[in-house]
């Protein structure tokens, strides 16, 4: 136990005992961290990679395989990022639900609405394309949806 901990000793015997018990493990670990690890560690940065935007599939010539590949790689990156965003929104709602239960239906409504809207937007772009989806398929899907909407009206508020 360190010096200042001795000074303000806990008047509650049980709590003092429990904290002493806790400190048998925690104090050496904290001391090692403060005395050895923190002063010796180096400070250096790491970065989130940023990719330059490349021409999308609708700007590529039909026989330009390199452009096709680049657009496709970008599409897959975008899909990964969008899926990750969706996952964050979902986990926000889930955390709220766990915390606010049983009032989650009312209290977490805004988070739920945001999540549902994002899910819909995600599905409009990436849904039903399967695991082997590529930029060309997504582009064709968009085209077919636009043709359908021209004839029958909008499918969603988001494509209005």
């Amino acid at each position, binding site marked *: 136990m360190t010096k200042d901990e001795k000074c303000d000793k806990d008047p509650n015997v049980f709590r003092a005992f429990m904290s002493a018990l806790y400190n048998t493990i925690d104090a050496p670990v904290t001391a090692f961290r403060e005395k050895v690890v923190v002063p010796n*560690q180096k400070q250096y940065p*790491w*970065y989130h*990679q940023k990719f330059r935007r490349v021409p999308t599939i609708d700007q590529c010539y039909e026989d330009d395989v390199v452009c096709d590949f680049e657009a496709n790689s970008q599409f897959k990156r975008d899909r990964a990022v969008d899926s990750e965003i969706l996952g964050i929104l979902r986990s926000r709602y889930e955390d709220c639900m766990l915390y606010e239960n049983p009032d989650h239906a009312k209290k977490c409504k805004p988070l739920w609405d945001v999540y549902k809207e994002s899910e819909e937007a995600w599905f409009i772009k990436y849904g039903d394309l399967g695991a082997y989806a590529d930029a060309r398929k997504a582009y064709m899907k968009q085209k077919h949806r636009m043709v359908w909407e021209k004839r029958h009206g909008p499918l969603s508020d988001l494509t209005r």
Partner: protein
Amino acid sequence: MVSWSGLGRSFGINLLKNHTKTLNSVQNVTFTTSKTLLDAHGHKTFVIQPSRWQWHKFKDMFHFYAMLGLIPVGAIIFYSNVFIGPATLTPIPEGYEPKHWEYYRHPITRFIARYLHQSPQQDYEKFMHFLDEEKQKQKLRQLEKQIVKKMGERQDYQAYYYKPMINKYLRINKKTGEEMMDRIGDDYKD
């Protein structure tokens, strides 16, 4: 490997020399080469008991792999976590392009990315070059196919469908004929 634990065994036994007597006489085996096996005053018995071979083998191998693997690798992991530590996430400074291993947080991951793996950008560009070359080959093959087809249709060009003749044997044949003609004339009858 085996000899190490053999050393260990005799070392350990020599440390506990006082206890060896009872232990060994019960188990009727000795783990030391420096003592005689037989206890002069006891009964000379041979107690049949299960083999301890697998247990000794296990200890040997555990010793071996701990020395070779766990200890050095553990030391490296300990060092890099305690004395180097994780990087801190920072926005990319203006006008600076990070190296590809600078996108990782942990020093060991950074080491692997830097010295063991290829640069992802390099791989990406290499693959695009490969794609481009393949596409060009494809285009050339397609063109060749078209040309061959047209030549086959039109039959007007001396390639693919034209086989040049070799006149050497024709000339020899002709010469032989002329010689025969000279010798026997053209009014020869059988």
